[in-house]
Each structure stands twice: as structure tokens, then as C-alpha cells.
């Protein structure tokens, strides 16, 4: 299944649902989908078109809205990489459907997404913090962005915190 055939089958199957579909490079495709029909497109990609493994899930915080970027690729046949963008508009509780049922490798990526960006994932097997310590929620945080440190409002300290003169 070469790249062009992927393009054609995606066009006539989901022309209505896809917001953006373009060929960026020799074997790269870019796709934009709304949050509702993401699951359906992904199932078609995996089962009909043979995109067998999910590479990574990247969260993006554009101050006014969130964006989640999925990288999916296939190895046998003619290997291509697919970049799927999903835009989440409400900032209070951004929600993304979980892809763990389609690709098992999405399990940890989605937990990390929830851990660092606060983007909750619908019906994920065990949505817990992955990288930050478990007692991170009990710390008294001044601003919501400290709970999910990868958001843009949370700024890293400029000066090393502990190098105050030692009280001799």
C-alpha cells in the first residue's frame, strides 16, 4: 500500500471528518481530526490500513487551547509516518479518548500526557501519575499549572533556589 493509496483511501472514507490532510514529505502524512471522531479514524488506520505501531503522543499548550499530536507509523510494506493533530478547546478539563484499546503502547504515553499536561484520558485502564512522585498532588500548589508542570504558565526558576548564603 504505497503513500498515494493511503491518501486516496483516507480522502474518500473520511473527507467530511478530516479538517486537514496533506503530504508533508517523501513518506510523511499530516492529518487533523476533531476529538469526537478520533477513535473511529484511528481504528480504520490500524485495522484497514495496517498502521501497526504508535510512536509517541505529544501534548502542546498554545496558551488559549491544547493540542495533542499522535505519531503513528507502519514498518512492513512501504513504511510511512502519520502525524495526527487533535485540537482541544476548553482549558478547564481537556479530554481525549484513550487509544490503549487499539495500540497497547499508548498506555504509558497517555499516562504521561495526564501527568504533565492535565489532559484527562477517557476510559484509560489505570490513569495514574507516571513520572512525578505520587505525593505531588498533596503539595500545596499556588496555581493549577504547578500540578501539571509542563503547562506554559509554570516557569522554571531563574536563580538556583538553594544557594542562599549559609547561615554560619
Amino acid at each position, binding site marked *: 500500500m504505497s503513500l498515494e493509496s493511503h491518501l486516496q483511501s483516507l480522502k474518500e472514507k473520511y473527507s467530511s471528518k478530516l479538517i486537514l490532510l496533506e503530504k508533508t514529505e517523501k*513518506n510523511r502524512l499530516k492529518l487533523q481530526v476533531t476529538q469526537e471522531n478520533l477513535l473511529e479514524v484511528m481504528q480504520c488506520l490500524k485495522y484497514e490500513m495496517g498502521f*501497526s*505501531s*504508535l*510512536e*509517541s503522543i*505529544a501534548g*502542546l*499548550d498554545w496558551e488559549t487551547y491544547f493540542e495533542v*499530536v499522535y*505519531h503513528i507509523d507502519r*514498518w*512492513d510494506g512501504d*513504511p510511512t*509516518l502519520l*502525524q495526527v493533530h487533535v485540537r482541544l478547546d476548553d482549558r478547564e478539563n481537556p479530554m481525549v479518548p484513550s487509544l490503549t484499546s487499539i*495500540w*497497547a*503502547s499508548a*498506555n*504509558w504515553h497517555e499516562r504521561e500526557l495526564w501527568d*504533565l499536561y492535565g489532559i484527562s484520558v477517557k476510559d484509560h485502564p489505570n490513569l495514574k*501519575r*507516571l*513520572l*512525578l*512522585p505520587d505525593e505531588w498532588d498533596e503539595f500545596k500548589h499556588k496555581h493549577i499549572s504547578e500540578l501539571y*508542570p*509542563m503547562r506554559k504558565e*509554570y*516557569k*522554571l526558576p531563574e536563580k538556583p533556589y538553594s544557594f542562599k548564603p549559609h547561615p554560619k
Partner: protein
Amino acid sequence: MSEQMFIHLGPQHPVNHGLWTLKIKSEGERVVDSEIMIGYIFRMIEKIAESRPYDTFQPIADRLCYVSAMAWEASYILTIEKLLGIEVSRRAQYMRVILLEFQRIASHLTWLSAYAGDLGVLTMLVIPYREREYILDILEHVTGSRMMYNFFRLGGLRSDFPQGFIEDAKALTFYLDERIREYKAMLDDSKVFRLRSKDVGILGKEDALDLGATGPVLRASGVQADLRKIEPYLVYDEIDFKIPFQKAGDCYARFQIRMEEIMQSTHIIRQALAGMPSEGEIMIKAPRQLPKGDVYFRTEDPRGEAGFYIVGNENRNPYRVKIKSPAYSNLSIGSHLLRGAKIADIPPIIASLDLCMGEIDR
């Protein structure tokens, strides 16, 4: 039904070569279920990357995976060059290929010492470090430091190769070939080593693709997935080499693949040394800002497919740097592989995934 027992192989444990916890629910000797907890050296490198100018992030990219520092540096710089659309001279590309392949051999040797050490072969716990010292000498001869090089620059490298490097490198490749034959004789032919690694931690082809395995772990399950052939970057398309792959998918197949990859790397280095053009400028001036737009570039790291997804926003600091780490996806297979294995099989399975906690916890 014998009673079940919970065992914590805590953060500080010889089996996991780094700091992560493996919670096992075991029935007698057999592991029923396991849970992997990571994050013990989580330093939020992606946030640090966003708050630094893009060219000063490179030393931190070195420290992502400390065993193959050069590989991570290369993937960061190549991604930035692709975003900025910089052309690199052919001589610099050949030099980069040579350094990357040396780093791949050093990384595989560290893996071999960890894997054989876990199986109990005391000598093979130490001898691969002897060969790695020779490689570190060569890299120190070129870059000036043993492990953290910071040697890549936009458009090429910081400085040219010193005199006598080409002869030393060629001599080292022949020396390494003999050593690998010696390791094969020491490990392949010993019945107990095959007894301990054959049919241990078997990973089928569909499971490998579904669970997101990369690199030698994926190639051990029968998928010919090597980025140097599929998406040739630098000058890999001008160098001919084979991708070793096996169908068995067990620890022994991963061992054979990594040993074969070392042999291929020495072959690549010799060809690159021969084919390297003698002149070409090494470095160009780094542009002021990153343009608007995003790029996802992946390279063949010794552990698998390492990638950087960088989003620029007309600012000196990148807007978002997502690090796709191969060991991260390899470790997530762990609980699948350990289901049904014996307790004594945990070390070979974990060690055959070649974990490097720096890049897993980021």
C-alpha cells in the same frame, strides 16, 4: 493454588540497572503479574529545553542517555538542521557517521556487560569495558571528553579530526572484530548461556508492533525496521550494510542481533573512513531564531528509534521539544514479557531490553 507473594524489586536493585521499581506478584517461582514504576530520576528535561535558547540545550541532550551520548546529540542537531533547512557538507556527514557508529559499538558493549553480568558470567561483566575503553580513547582523541561530548554543531562538527585518527580508527575496527569473535566463542558456544537465554522472554511479531518495541527488540521479532535503511539520513544510503534480524524474538535473538550490529558498524566505519572526502567546511554560523513550524525527525539510536518533535515559534527558545525515547517504549513491554516467566528469568529479560534510565525518565 499456591499462595501468591508480592515482591518489590525496589529502586536500588542489581537487576534493573538504574532506578525503577518492579512489583511482582508471583506464585512460587512463576511470575503472575508485574507492574513497573519509573520516574526516580525524572528531571523534566522537556521543560528545561523550552526555557533555554535552542543551541544551549545540546549538552543536556547528551545527558539524556549517558551510554550513547553522541547518538542523542546527533538526533537533536539533525532535527534542528531540518527545521532550519541547513545543508551539511559531505565531509561533515561522513565524520558524523563514523562517530555515531563508534558510539553504537560502545553502547552495545555496555549492554553486553550488563546482560552477561546478570546471567552470572563474571568475566563478561568486566571484559566489554576493556574494549569500550579503547573506543572512549579514540572519541576522547577527537572530542576531548570521555562520555559527554558536546561535539556536534549546526552544519557539522566543532573541529576536524586530529592527525592519525584515520589509521587508529581502522586499526581499532579490526581489533574489535577479533574481540567480537572471541565473545561469540565465550558466550555462544557455552551451553549454559544458551540454556539461560533461549526461549526466554519471547515476543511475537504482532505483540512487538502493537506494544511499540523498537530497535534490536523489534528486529528480534522478525520486523526489518532500521531507520538507516528506511529513512536514510546523513550518508547511510551511500554505505552498504545489512540489517541483522531474527524471527525467534527471545533474549538469545536479541543477543545475536546486537553482536551482528557491532560487526556491521565496524564494516560501516571502514567504508566511511575510505569514502570520506578530504575537504569541506566543518561548521556554519547558527541562525538567531527558530522559524514557525514543527518537525519530527527520527534517527537509529543503539536502543531503537529515537526522535525529536520540535515546534518553533519565532523565538530563540523552542516552543515545545518532545523526546521520543526508544528505551521508554521498550520498557513498557516489560510487564507483557514477564507474565508467566520465572523469577530467575527476570534479569535476562530486563537486561535484553537494554534500558537506559536517563532517556526513560527524561
